[in-house]
């Protein structure tokens, strides 16, 4: 049993490195700055993995300054590391390492602040995963946000990134204020900020109006980051224009961390008083299904490759919410597996698009027809990534989807499988269609080139793609595959999810320092092996994605009519008009959505 490192290290190290990068005059030594940042990200990854291993038996609770609780009453601030949180922290730091590696040759000129901002972003993500304090959760959420806004608008001379960063910044800040208001209310009721202590204090009274309002405000704030309908509008604007290495962090893990915030708060603070709230399940399921379908339809209609991938992220965020909505360890485990697989696959797809940008200075599919043929390896990766999004077993994405479907079938919600399948077929088909169009030059799609809103963010000689750009793309796709094939991975995640939802054991570990006995396998937890039926369904959905991609490429005249028809269908035209690009509209939707969810929640939990 290796000794786990101090949980403060993976947060402190990148922050110190960031400060050193800003203070030290590294401008003339860009390679040095990049090298330090890569080494730091790799070190943080190693630390997070050690924490993950160390927390497998019992949570690691770390009190800053040694202020441990007295008689069960916390007076300090803690990090409480459990395998699920440490796993997400590992995923974040792995993606930062890959992003920094890719940046090595991708940018010819990038200011010294880039590496520093990436380090701050990394520290914030890791701390958000590890903290056990509600106010710290908010602080790291905002720190992650502000580093994200600056990174999204890094190409500050270009119109697209400016718009994306402003829309991202304003909507997420409003969300942050909602979370903070909810935290203020919870503190007023309980006088506590430690997650476990708030949960205990709330459970002493029957749930009332204040509990509902704070649940609503805290979760809606986090769900803005998780891009759930109708809070999702900022996402494509920001993800389509952020520098490509940053996109892999946004899509691969930042959106998912928004959802993790909801998990953490629900299972430590609210679950002890609400118990298994069936009505909550209904609301979250409806929102999740809507999000996954809206994202998938919009994804299918795009031709700007990064925007296409951004909408597919919305669709996946919806599927993750569906898995969360079951409020069961099995559903949570499926979601976590899906998040891990999706992180690898989506990041790899974004890097492939980055390579296209590097070679051809554009990522508008209409301008790229057939030009990708010179990059067969990248084409293969892109197509494999599309198949993985479409649910091809044994990718981690397929395994996660299967586990969610099994969990929902056990909860007698069989219809969920149909919604997830439609969403995966559409998102997979969209990527595969562009793979055929760009890399093989096949099909009869006639599309007008888009108006370019962003200059090429990369420079340098473009005759050949440096291996340091291809290696991370291959590695991340392989990681997405490994999640699905590594024996025992899914079973391990299920054990971690069982621990995650055990509010009582979490509180005991944090407040009393009692490490709980390993929970006996509950009847709802499986062995991490999906039912054969759902595996076949996954295979079928991947085949469906290929078929739909070919149809949209080839069956030109009838399909073009269908395509035009689809664009003409009121619902779809509507969806595209709603995505107006105007941040004031987005905030209006945010307010309206919160109000609607509030009314439903109040009626449901009455």
């Amino acid at each position, binding site marked *: 049993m290796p000794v786990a490192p101090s949980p403060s290290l993976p947060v402190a190290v990148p922050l110190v490195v960031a400060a050193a990068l800003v203070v030290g005059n590294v401008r003339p030594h860009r390679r040095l700055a990049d090298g330090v940042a890569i080494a730091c990200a790799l070190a943080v990854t190693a630390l997070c993995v050690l924490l993950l291993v160390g927390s497998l038996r019992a949570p690691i609770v770390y009190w800053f300054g040694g202020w441990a609780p007295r008689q069960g009453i916390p007076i300090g601030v803690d990090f409480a590391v459990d395998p699920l949180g440490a796993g997400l922290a590992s995923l974040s730091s792995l993606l930062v390492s890959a992003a920094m590696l890719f940046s090595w040759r991708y940018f010819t000129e990038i200011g010294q602040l880039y590496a520093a901002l990436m380090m701050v972003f990394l520290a914030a993500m890791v701390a958000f995963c590890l903290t056990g304090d509600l106010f710290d959760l908010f*602080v790291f959420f*905002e720190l992650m946000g502000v580093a994200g806004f600056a990174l999204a608008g890094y190409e500050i001379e270009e119109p697209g990134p400016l718009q994306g960063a402003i829309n991202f*910044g304003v909507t997420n800040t409003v969300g942050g204020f909602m979370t903070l208001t909810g935290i203020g209310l919870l503190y007023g009721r309980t006088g506590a900020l430690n997650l476990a202590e708030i949960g205990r204090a709330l459970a002493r009274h029957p749930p009332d109006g204040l509990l509902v309002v704070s649940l609503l405000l805290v979760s809606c704030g986090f769900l803005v980051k998780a891009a759930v309908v109708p809070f999702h509008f900022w996402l494509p604007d920001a993800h389509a224009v952020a520098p490509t290495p940053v996109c892999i962090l946004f899509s691969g893990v930042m959106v998912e961390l928004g959802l993790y915030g909801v998990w953490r708060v629900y299972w430590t603070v609210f679950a002890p008083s609400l118990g298994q709230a069936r009505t909550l399940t209904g609301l979250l399921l409806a929102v999740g299904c809507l999000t996954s379908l809206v994202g998938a339809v919009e994804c299918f209609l795009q031709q700007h490759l990064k925007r296409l991938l951004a909408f597919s992220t919305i669709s996946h965020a919806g599927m993750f919410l569906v898995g969360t909505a079951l409020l069961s360890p099995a559903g949570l485990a499926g979601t976590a597996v899906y998040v891990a697989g999706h992180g690898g696959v989506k990041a790899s797809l974004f890097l492939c698009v980055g390579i296209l940008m590097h070679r051809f200075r554009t990522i508008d599919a209409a301008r790229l027809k057939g030009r990708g043929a010179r990059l067969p390896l990248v084409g293969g990766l892109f197509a494999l990534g599309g198949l993985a999004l479409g649910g091809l077993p044994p990718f981690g994405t397929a395994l996660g989807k299967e586990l969610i479907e099994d969990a929902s079938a056990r909860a007698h919600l069989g219809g969920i499988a149909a919604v997830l399948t439609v969403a995966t077929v559409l998102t997979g088909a969209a990527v595969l269609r562009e793979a055929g169009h760009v890399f093989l030059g096949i099909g009869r799609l006639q599309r007008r080139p888009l108006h370019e809103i962003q200059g090429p963010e990369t420079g340098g000689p473009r005759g050949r793609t440096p291996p340091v750009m291809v290696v991370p793309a291959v590695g991340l796709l392989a990681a997405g595959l490994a999640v699905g094939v590594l024996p025992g991975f899914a079973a391990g995640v299920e054990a971690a999810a069982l621990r995650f939802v055990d509010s009582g054991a979490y509180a005991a570990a944090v407040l009393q320092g009692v490490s709980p006995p390993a929970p006996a396998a509950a009847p709802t937890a499986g062995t991490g092996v999906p039912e054969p039926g759902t595996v076949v369904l996954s295979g079928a959905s991947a085949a469906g994605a290929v078929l739909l991609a070919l149809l949209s490429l080839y069956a030109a005249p009838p399909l073009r009519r269908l395509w035009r028809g689809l664009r003409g269908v009121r619902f779809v035209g509507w969806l595209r008009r709603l995505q107006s690009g105007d941040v004031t509209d987005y905030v209006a939707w945010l307010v309206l959505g919160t109000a609607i969810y509030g009314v439903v929640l109040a009626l449901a939990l009455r």
Partner: protein
Amino acid sequence: MNQLITWLPFGVAAWLFMAGLYGIVTSRHLVHLIVCLSVVQSSTYVLLLAVGYRTGALAPVLVDVPAGTPTVDPIVQALCLTDVVVEVTVMAVLLALAVQAHKRFGTADPARLRPQRG
């Protein structure tokens, strides 16, 4: 009357939150929009301070006062300070983006700053 004094700060916080949101939604200028955002933020200060207020208590400076003197909750004041620091950073980044947007587009009207839509 006492009831009113107890609830007034919460009412003010809610009103500030809503007024700020209304300002954001109807805004035609980015700087105005960001100021409205800081109005929303002010509501969180009022809320936090109201939560920690104790009638008749002193400020939490425990020098030269006998032990056991009631003070208002110092934790919310620490939270407020943290909130100020965090949000100043956010506002600074947003204002920098607004200035840049005005340079680049010649306007700061969010309705006219939308190269990407649909």
